[in-house]
Structures are given as structure tokens and as C-alpha cells.
């Protein structure tokens, strides 16, 4: 079986998940007790809006028809229209794409930059002081609230030593980069303990393996062993671990955006809650689930590209 076959197979595997997501997002609104329109709009319920929402939900029609219509709209790229500013939800979400994309990428890159060297450092001398220190990171790090990490970084690098902006996204690309540094670091600090725990174990396994002994026995240099024989296997392990934690990463991003007042998709959602803007909440929920599925798919494909065992199984 070649790589392309694997890609095809993996794509087919996502179909049921996509179906499940669409059902779940569709169902959320139907979980609402009582009259959805009233509940959804809360104090903002005006007859006009109640009518609009009832029309959007198609509450009076059979549930299957409602679902089919929902899917039909989806395929046309429509997630409904925002209550508060009458704009299409899809457009609103896509407008926030740069913020979300940069934050996600920045968070992932920084996480690997922190977790991978530390794991290698710890595993290369098992039981030594540096290993003990690295092993303490998950024990303490896993209990740190994401908002708290953010606030601490703001205090430290934004106010005490004002090196980075503490809020906003800036206007130019360099400004964007500076603005997303602290939020990305927050995500990285949040994710690193999880990554380190798995990566240290994988590294130990790699370093203890016979193929490293084989490489050492044939007398090639330590640098080559580390960068060719160890690192490639270590990166594969990182990609896998990262893939497992994408949902946590994306979810935390929503919170971190809020702490650093970055106008990304997460902020869009939280603002929508205050305004009881139901289409946005539904749209963003779906959007984030799709992001998770997509990133998961990507990590699997990268994994398969790096590790010849996967595609050929």
C-alpha cells in the first residue's frame, strides 16, 4: 500500500466524524429546554428576532428536513447570519483567520521548541539531576490554569519588563508576530508538560533501542546519531503526541485569546455569547471542530510521510 492509498483511506475515515460533528452541532440547539427562540435570545428577544430564529431553525418542520437544510446550507458555505450585525457568519469567521492561524502555529512551534529539547535532555541521562528536573515539569505544569499563565506572562514580560505587547494584534506583520508571542508562549507552557510526559518516554525508548546500539557499534559520530537516528524518530513521536492533543490546544486558544484581547475566532464566540448571537456560537463551534479534524488529519499524514511503517501497514 502506497502513501496515496493511505491518504485516501484516511480521508474516508474522516467522513463519519464529519457526519457526527454536523449532527452534534445541529443537535446542540435542540437541547435547549422550552422555547428555543426565547431562551436563545434571552432579554434580547424581540418579536422580529424570534421570528427570524424560528425561521432559521425551521422549528415547525420535521427534524430530518431541518437537518437536511442545515447540511445544504453548509455545503454552500453558509452558517447563517449574525443577529447582531447581520453579516454572514462564514465571513466573520474567515475574517478572524489570520489571528487564529498565527496563534495556533505559534503555539505549536513554541511547544515543540520547548518540549523536544527538554525531553531529549532528560532522556539522554536517565535519573540524573536534569532528568529529575524535567520530570517535575508535568507534575507542576499540568495544574497551571491557562488564564493564570497568561496573566503571569503579562505581569512578567509585558509590565515588569515590557518586552512584548500584552493585548491586541497590531497592524503590520512584524507587529502581529510580536503580539502573538506571549499568547503563543502561554499555549506552549500549557501544552509542554503534556508533550514532555509522552516525549520523554518515547525518547527513552528510542535511546534504549538496539538500532541506536547498532549505530554506535558501527562507529558513526554522536552528532550524526543524535540528528539522524534519534531526531527523526523523535519528531515522529512529537507529531503523534501533538495530534492527540490538538483539541486541547484549540480549546485553550479560545481562552488565551481572551486573556490577551486578541480579536480571533475565540473572542468572536465569547462576544457572541454576551450578545446571545446564536448563529455565531453555532458556526464557531462547528468551525473549531473542523479545525481539530483537519489538524488531526494533517498530523496523521505527516506521521505517515515520516514513518514508513504507517502507510505500509
Amino acid at each position: 500500500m502506497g502513501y496515496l492509498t493511505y491518504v485516501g483511506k484516511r480521508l474516508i475515515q474522516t467522513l463519519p466524524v464529519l457526519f457526527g460533528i454536523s449532527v452534534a452541532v445541529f443537535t446542540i440547539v435542540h437541547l435547549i429546554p422550552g422555547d428555543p427562540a426565547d431562551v436563545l435570545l434571552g432579554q434580547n428577544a424581540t418579536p422580529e428576532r424570534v421570528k427570524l430564529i424560528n425561521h432559521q431553525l425551521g422549528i415547525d418542520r420535521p427534524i430530518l428536513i431541518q437537518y437536511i437544510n442545515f447540511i445544504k446550507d453548509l455545503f454552500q458555505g453558509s452558517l447563517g447570519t449574525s443577529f447582531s450585525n447581520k453579516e454572514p457568519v462564514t465571513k466573520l469567521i474567515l475574517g478572524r483567520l489570520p489571528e487564529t492561524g498565527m496563534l495556533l502555529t505559534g503555539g505549536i512551534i513554541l511547544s515543540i521548541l520547548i518540549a523536544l529539547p527538554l525531553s531529549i535532555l532528560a532522556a539522554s541521562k536517565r535519573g540524573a539531576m536534569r532528568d529529575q528536573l524535567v520530570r517535575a515539569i508535568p507534575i507542576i505544569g499540568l495544574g497551571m490554569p491557562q488564564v493564570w499563565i497568561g496573566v503571569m506572562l503579562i505581569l512578567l514580560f509585558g509590565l515588569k519588563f515590557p518586552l512584548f505587547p500584552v493585548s491586541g494584534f497590531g497592524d503590520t506583520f512584524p507587529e502581529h508576530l510580536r503580539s502573538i508571542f506571549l499568547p503563543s508562549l502561554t499555549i506552549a507552557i500549557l501544552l509542554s508538560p503534556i508533550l514532555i510526559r509522552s516525549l520523554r518516554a518515547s525518547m527513552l525508548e528510542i535511546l534504549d533501542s538496539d538500532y541506536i546500539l547498532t549505530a554506535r557499534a558501527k562507529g558513526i559520530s554522536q552528532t550524526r546519531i543524535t540528528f539522524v537516528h534519534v531526531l527523526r524518530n523523535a519528531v515522529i513521536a512529537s507529531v503523534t503526541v501533538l495530534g492527540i492533543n490538538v483539541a486541547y490546544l484549540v480549546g485553550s486558544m479560545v481562552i488565551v485569546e481572551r486573556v490577551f484581547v486578541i480579536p480571533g475566532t475565540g473572542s468572536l464566540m465569547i462576544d457572541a455569547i454576551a450578545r446571545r448571537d446564536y448563529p455565531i456560537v453555532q458556526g464557531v463551534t462547528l468551525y473549531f471542530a473542523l479545525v481539530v479534524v483537519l489538524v488531526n488529519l494533517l498530523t496523521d499524514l505527516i506521521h505517515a510521510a515520516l514513518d514508513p511503517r504507517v502507510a505500509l501497514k
Partner: protein
Amino acid sequence: MSTPLISVENLCVEIKTNRGLLQAIRGVSFDIDSGDSIGIVGESGSGKSITLKAVLGLLPNNAHVSSGKIYFAGQDIAKLEKKARRALLSETAGMIFQDAIAALNPVITIGNQIAEVPRYRLGQSASQSRQTALKLIEQVGISDAESRFDLYPHQLSGGLRQRVAIAIALSASPKILFCDEPTTALDVTIQAQVLRLLLELRRNSGLGIVFVTHDLAVVNEICDEIKVMYAGRFVESGTVDSTFNNPTHPYTYSLLKAAPDPDASVHRLFSISGEAPNLSEPVVGCPFAPRCFAGDTHCLTSEPELLKIAHSESACFKSKDHDKWAASDSKSGVK
């Protein structure tokens, strides 16, 4: 007499475990010359693999050489600078392992793994090293080298993997091949093929072999000399012929009895009762004494040295009586 290729003097290895420090190797000395073929046999945990790894500097993190000297071509390797040591070691000896799939890097093609030393240590060009690798692949008896070059380890069968591992070990053109139970994980027929390959390499290119195993039949097949290991020491050492016909240590005697005799029509399953001593505690007396049929109270108080006796060396106070064991055995049977 010329300097031996490898000379090991009184090697001791300690392993850190949860239950404290383990004296895995307790003073082992031996020489290896080019063209030698030595079998090291013993139960699991006796220290045979650790000995090989210690000599090649491949000990795991929790183990270290606590005393003793290792000379490669007369040079004390502990005194050599890192890079020089690595070169000397790999030019002298290569190593293959029990589990070939674990010994091959899963994400690098077998061709590149074989070509790595020629390319990155011997300074050959990309196409030269490829040619070298192709030659090695053919040398270890894999047909169709061109098309196999770009395969990954998991795409090969167990026997082919072990051949690839041998090719990798040979890529640094060592004079001796250290074999750590390389056939244990293989089917009997594949096992025979790999052994035949090793024999051919020995015959055709004078490759020396140190073969660690618990399988006496394998030693009989490909080795000239045998060293029997027990509780981190050699307890008997001699030529295969004389040792198999006339063991001078009770442990060797029991091992030979335990091995199924391929010629016998009736396979008698025999095992040595008792357990090997716990090496995290100091050894008092002969470590084999509690399991020995020939021992007496003296054996429980002091540990015998490896001494010359008749045709071989043996670490046993009773080895001068070795002729009587077989005789008494035929009456009462070894227990």
C-alpha cells in the same frame, strides 16, 4: 607472540537497579585474535551479552565498567580520545543483535543504513557508498540488491533483516563480529541459513566470530572455542571438542546434559534445579555450589579461580574428579 586484536583483563561491570548495585560481570579475562571463533554460553542473566556490550562500549546508561582493562590492538581504550576510540572499535569489531527488527532504524532505508559508514565515516561519495552497500547486500546473500536498497526494515522477513544487520556490521569492515544471540528469534530453517552465512564469511574473509548464545548446538556448529559463563564469570574455557566430550566443570557438565541431544532417539528433558545467585549481594563461596552435584562444604566458603586443568581451564575445586562424574552418573543419575 603478537598482540591480540582484543584483550580483556579482569573486566568488572556494575549495573544500577532498583534493588541496588548488581555485580553483573565479576572479573572476566580473555583474548580474541583474528580468525578466532569463540562461543560464550550461559543461562540468561549470566552476563554474556553485557560482556560483549562492555567490550564495545555499548553498555546501557545504568551500567558501567567498574574495573579492568580493555585493549584493542594493544591500546588501552579507556585512555584513547573519543573519536580515535570509536574508529578503532568499529574497525576491529562489529555487532549484531538478537532482535534484528529492533536493531534496524525503522525510518531509514536499509541501503542508507548500510551505506552510512562508507559515506559518513570513510568519506566515500554518494555513488561510491551506494556501490559499497550494494556489494555488502550481495555479500550477505540477499539477491536483487538494487531493488532491495530502498526498502525499509519492516518490509523484509526476519531472516533478511538479520542479514541486513550483518551487512551493517560489516560496513565498517571489522575483523571480528560480535553476535548476541542473532538466531534465537528465528525459525529453525532460517536460523541454519544465517549460521551458514556466518560460517561462509569466516571461511572466505577470515572474519573472527564471538557468538553469545544459550544454544550449545549452535556453538558446536560454528565455534572452535567455548567459554562457559556463570554468575558473571567464566567457569570453564577450552576448545569445543574437548569441552563437549569431557567437561571439567560441573556446570558445563549439567548444561550439556540439559541440552537435548540431537542424535538421541528419545529426547530427555533435563534442567538444572535451583536458581543462579542474586548478584546484588556479595558472592560467598562457589556461586554454583548450591546447585552442584559434586560440591562439598569447602565449596560454600571460598570461590574457585579459573585454573588450567588438563586440556582446558576450569573454576572448580572438584574439576580433577571430572572423569568420575560420568561414571557415577550412569549409576545414580544427575539430580
